[in-house]
């Protein structure tokens, strides 16, 4: 009878039959990337996704299609309720893939089923991704549990929050471990590359230099060095035209250091359709699921005259040809974001475009910022200045090259260049600065009321609360 009752797990993968060969490890590592797209999940509301909370919180962004209280908490800075479901998505979007990384690292760490080089390259991807997810967590929530081994017993899942510094140390440790493997500087397929590792390390260091760790000079120097190594590698370059950012031929190369990989059918991108105008206008085969995000008027107006980024159909647009009848130009009621427009999606109704996570422009501006910070607010370091000029002169081709740059100019450039790429909030947090768009100056974030907000930022707004559901499941988190 024992034999009769043996359970048959047909076609299902179980721990007993896994991590036994190179193909299995490859698939597990591929799986660890999927969490990058998890915040982009769309919920039951139209054009509602937790990912937008990261822009709504900056106050530079409006939501043309109302969606209710949860988004309003971010958009209006109404005070974020720890029951807000966006928090839970960001939390799980980090910890679930971290567990995949932990499982890979634990199971592949000493594996002999592949040769050491292959093994270390797999591990480098897992270390990078674990660092990426923890970096996301620590910046959003501050002190969170630090778990680097896979779960083996469900009676042992109550974790406590780790000091912020220990989390950053783990991130640095993971990235430096990853760096040591033999990955190439670039990876056209979209996997982790040495360029991505170093660029992320530069971002981590500059964050450690600023808030909340305030490690200062030493880390600005480290950030500068890492960014400089990326620049000196000669592997990356800015695209000449902004439209090239959207060109599928350029994915995972040139300016795109690391991206979320999409295709039209399996893992489509939500950005093209959710960012279209609301109320809907017939400018695409599928204009119905629109209205998630548009620039606040005053932020849009903060771009200087002649900035190519606000030229029609670069980062923004104010009109578009009717779908199927392009000669009929349809005026939009206000400027909308064009950064993620996908010409193919307009026709096919499917958006398969990649989403940029780390751009070379970001690294260049980091280099300039680190240098300016190291030098007391202005720098004439030729590498830093050249880096800034590259980004700035692409927007203003006729502008003269600067020879000295001020920190605030670099920060402003970051607002304009990286707008709506889910980077701005992290810049605001680590610098504790905001961009006063009405007066065109960088100000302290505390006390600044951003265009869409109902009130000024307070200290307590800088970190999001730990999701209520997680506190209920693990009361140690409220300590």
């Amino acid at each position, binding site marked *: *009878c*024992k034999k*009769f*009752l*043996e*359970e048959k*797990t*047909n*076609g*299902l*993968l179980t*721990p007993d039959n*896994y991590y036994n060969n190179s193909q*299995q490890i*490859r*698939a*597990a590592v*591929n*799986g*660890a*990337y*999927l969490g990058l797209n998890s915040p982009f999940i769309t919920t*039951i509301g139209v054009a509602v996704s937790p990912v937008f909370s990261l822009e709504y919180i900056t106050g530079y962004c409006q939501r*043309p299609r*109302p969606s*209710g209280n949860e988004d309003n908490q971010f958009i209006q800075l109404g005070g974020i309720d720890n029951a807000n479901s966006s928090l*839970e998505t960001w*939390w799980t979007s980090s910890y*679930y*893939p*971290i*567990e*995949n990384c*932990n*499982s890979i690292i634990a199971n592949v760490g000493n594996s002999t089923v592949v040769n050491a080089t292959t093994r270390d390259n797999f591990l480098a991807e897992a270390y990078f991704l674990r660092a990426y997810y923890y970096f996301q967590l620590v910046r959003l929530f501050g002190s969170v*549990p630090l*778990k680097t081994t*896979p*779960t083996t017993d*469900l009676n042992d*899942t109550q*974790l406590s929050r780790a000091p912020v510094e220990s989390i950053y140390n783990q991130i640095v440790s993971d990235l430096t471990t990853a760096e040591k493997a033999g990955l190439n500087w670039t990876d056209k*397929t*979209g996997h982790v590359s040495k360029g991505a590792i170093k660029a992320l390390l530069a971002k981590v260091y500059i964050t450690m230099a600023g808030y909340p760790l305030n490690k200062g000079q030493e880390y600005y120097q480290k950030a500068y060095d890492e960014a400089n190594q990326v620049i000196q590698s000669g592997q990356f370059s800015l695209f000449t035209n902004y439209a090239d950012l959207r060109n599928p031929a350029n994915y995972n190369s040139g300016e795109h250091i690391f991206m979320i*990989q999409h*295709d039209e*059918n*399996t*893992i489509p991108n939500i950005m093209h359709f959710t960012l279209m105008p609301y*109320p*809907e206008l017939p400018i695409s*085969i*599928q204009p*119905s699921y629109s209205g998630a995000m548009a620039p606040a008027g005053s932020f849009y107006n903060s771009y200087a005259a002649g900035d190519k980024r606000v030229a029609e159909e670069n980062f923004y647009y104010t009109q578009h040809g009717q779908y199927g009848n392009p000669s009929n130009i349809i005026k939009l009621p206000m400027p909308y974001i064009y950064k993620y427009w996908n010409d193919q999606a307009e026709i096919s*109704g*499917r958006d398969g475009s990649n989403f940029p996570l780390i751009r070379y422009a970001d690294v260049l501006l980091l280099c300039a910022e680190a240098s300016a910070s190291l030098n007391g607010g202005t720098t004439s370091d030729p590498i830093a200045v050249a880096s800034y000029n590259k980004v700035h002169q692409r927007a203003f081709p006729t502008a003269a090259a600067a020879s000295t740059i001020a920190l605030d100019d670099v920060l402003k450039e970051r607002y304009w260049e990286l707008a709506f790429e889910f980077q701005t909030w992290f810049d605001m947090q680590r610098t504790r600065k905001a961009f006063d768009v009405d007066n065109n100056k960088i100000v302290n974030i505390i006390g600044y009321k951003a265009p869409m907000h109902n009130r000024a930022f307070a200290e307590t707004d800088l970190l999001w609360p730990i999701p209520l559901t*997680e506190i*209920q*499941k*693990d009361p140690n988190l409220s300590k």
Partner: protein
Amino acid sequence: TSAFSKPSISAKAKNISGALSNAAITVKGVVTDEKGQPLPGASIKIKNGTTGTVTDVNGAFSLSVPDASAVLQVSFTGYETREVTASSSQLKIQLQPGNKSLNEVVVVGYGTSKKANLITSIASVKGDAITERPTTVNVLQGLAGKAAGVNVMTNSGKPGGNPAVKIRGTGSINSSNSPLYVIDGVVGADPNSIDPNIVASVDVYKDAGSTAIYGSRGANGVIVITTKLGKKNSSDISFNNTVSFGTLQHEINLLDANGALELLKREYEYVPGRLAPHLDPTNNFARKSDLFNVDGTPKYNTDWQKEATRTAISHQHSLTFSGGKDDFTILANISYKNNEGIMLNSYAKQLNGYINIGWDVKPWLNIKASLNAGGYQSNNIEGNTLGLNAVREMYEFLPFMPVQYPDGTYSRKGDYPGEEDSENPVRLLKDVKDVTGRISTLGNFVGTFHLAKHLNFVTSFSGQLNSGYENYFSGNDVFGVSQQQGGVAQRTNTLNSVWSNEDYFSYDNLFGKHHVNAIVGASWYDYITSATKTGSENFFDNTFSYYNLGAGTVIETPSSSQIENQLNSFYTRVNYDYDGKYLFGASFRADGSSKFRGDNLYGYFPAFNAGWRVSKENFFKGLQSVISDLKIRGSYGLVGNQEIGNYPTVSLYNSTQSIFNQQKTSAVTLATFGNPDLKWEKSQQLDLGLDVSFLNGRIDFSGDYYNKITKDLIYFVQQPATSGYAGAYKNLGSIRNRGFELTLNTQNIVSKDFKWSSSINFSVNRSKVLNINHDIIYTWGGRIMEGEPLNEFYGYIRQGVWTQAQAAEAAKFGKLPGDLRYADLNNNGVKDAGDRTDLGNAMPKWEGNFTNTFTYKNLSLFLDLEAMYGNKLLNLTRFIMTGPTINVNSYAEVLNAYTPQNQNSTNAQVRLANDPYSDHEVADSHYVEDGSFLRVRNIALTYKFNKDWLKAIKMTNLSLGVNVENAFLFTKYKGYDPEATSFDASLNQGVDVYQYPKPRTISINLNANF
């Protein structure tokens, strides 16, 4: 002497004067009731013969019999049948009102029992009652209202009704709440595959005393369906036909064209001076002149509830041949049902063939074999519940649009600027096909060996093969469904095969007054199901439908799976009674399941029961003229539930896809964390019952109290995300259901020409979540929480709308006059989660069913009333359609919404979606509606033709009936029907979103026997 005393003469006693003769003789006689009054219409048949007659108005009869030893069977409805030898040429036969029910045989697990000896809680429903409502398409629908404590919610108006059956409440959160079905001993058979016309009885096991013999699968009750068998030495042809006409029972009160335009006008006027597109001379949208006259009045006024529905014409036919010889019986049945749904193009068809034979092969061996095979197909028009499906569009489509414009194109909501764009319901019903079906075969072979006088050995083998399919196609021009994909075609096939073997010994003996009945046995059960799904998109032409997936240029990722599980069981039961007076029983089952491991592989399920037939005591004799039977009984036992999905004890990785280099690549992620320590969910149940029969069965009463606690709930315990998993299954928590059930069957009037009998059942169930790890599970608009009943709606109390006089107060809440005003229950000056409260329960406080049969001569009238009280529904349809920002059609009530001139309203001022927003809660007291109702479920008028007339045309029975199903509904509920859910019936009963409306069905029914 009492009018109710036992018959004073037995058939044997009458035989004294019988003279043996070989010549045919004519016997005459008079049949009277217990008072000596003649009984017209009583039936007299020669036992084992073919001839018979009925008494005339004077109760007299005359019949030719072969000889004086012939035995006559004299019967009359409501009276005990008597056998009388034709020993005298002038017979006086007095019939006594029968207490038939006590002698009825009830099927118990692995055996049968006389109802009189039953000491467990079993509701026995005869086949006649199952088909009493002629429009019944399946057995479960027929069971609705027939047994106390059995809640059958017909949750949809689509053909077949999608009935959800719950016995004594909802006991489980993550496991199934559906009862176990047993058809002719085949455990786990599909009740929908059986034609209700061949059902002899449905026995519903409610207490642990009766279900524990089914061990790990009995926790939600067991429904045992027994099919009819042929009768020895007889032959019968039975032919049942129904033709029915279903129409929308009632329309819900939606806006007409002028109303919808008034709504739009007001939405735009939220901002003073802003004009609705049809009133704005500068807005020349494409369809403006097609839809509106120059003065802005509409050209069309379409009632979409009319356009999307029809008179559904259905017909059902069932033909049964049954009979047998001395050692052989057979029953063969073929049935066909073609049921149209009232929504266009929805249907369900079923063709079934069934045959069973019984054969006394040898004195020591009897075999029974049965085979049921059939096909079922339906067009599912309500798939994609919250999507823009046809049913939803029937509610929401704009009444000022035509079905088709004069140029033939179908209207779309987006033809009016700013409205949510979608195809109209008529188009969707026509051009989206979702055809699901199955082909099912059930074979069963039972051998009974008479090993000794009192000992049998029964062995059975059964096999089930079910092949299911779902074929979906929506064309490349259906907007919002498949246009974007260029057409979508999908085919899903499932194959599930089950075999089982049961072997048991049964022993039955009488030692003086000591009666012992026992069984002991074992069973093996093996289940395999596999599924394949393929699909493609982007078709250059719609001709291909789902017949040629290769014609699509985009191939969807195919999927397939296979699941297997096994059960191995050992069981025994012993019943003992002393003189039918003191009754005891005990049963025990050990079940082994492949779903569990190690020490938990086997679960053990004992039950005990006892009864005392008080009426058999000497001291009761004096009362017997009034209380003819009285029994007190009780049972206690432990029953299991293992319906928990597959592989919960195994950790699984999930195989999926990632994209690299814009190509699909294999990816694997962690999926579930297996819990090897998982064990069976168990329910312990106490049942106390009372069966009383008054006036020799004129009044039968049965009452039960039960207390059922499901413990070791197989509960998906949520884990912190830091573990990497959402949670894992653990045995944790408990839920209690307790209540009582009353059944009262009465023969109110029994006279010569006129009879009235009625049946009432009434049940009350209260649930309480005793322990779920202090977690709170949120369902649609509700929550499951410790200390609370299950299915509890939970949300905000709407107090109305802020008025202009309250502007200052409203501003504190960030609201404007015209915005919704919710009660600030925690008095903290903001509207937050702390303002939520209980809003009522989805399950009824009580439910009852009241059927009446009036018979006057050959004419009978049947009246079936159904009532539920206290059940709440979350009318999600009304939530979506009547909120402050509406871009679809709405309920007519929305015109009473706040305006500066009409400030005293419960509806927020209407506005466009991008106007200042009034928050609007799903779980809002305004949408949690009282669903109490009284339904005249069925009225049937049947005429039975006189048997004398029928003889001439060789018929034994012919009846013609007309009946109305779902005739009248009395309720305050604002949706179509309060008996509804759009999601699972376990934890989301009563959540109504775009319900498929129920029809009122008028049918004509013809039954003939030859």
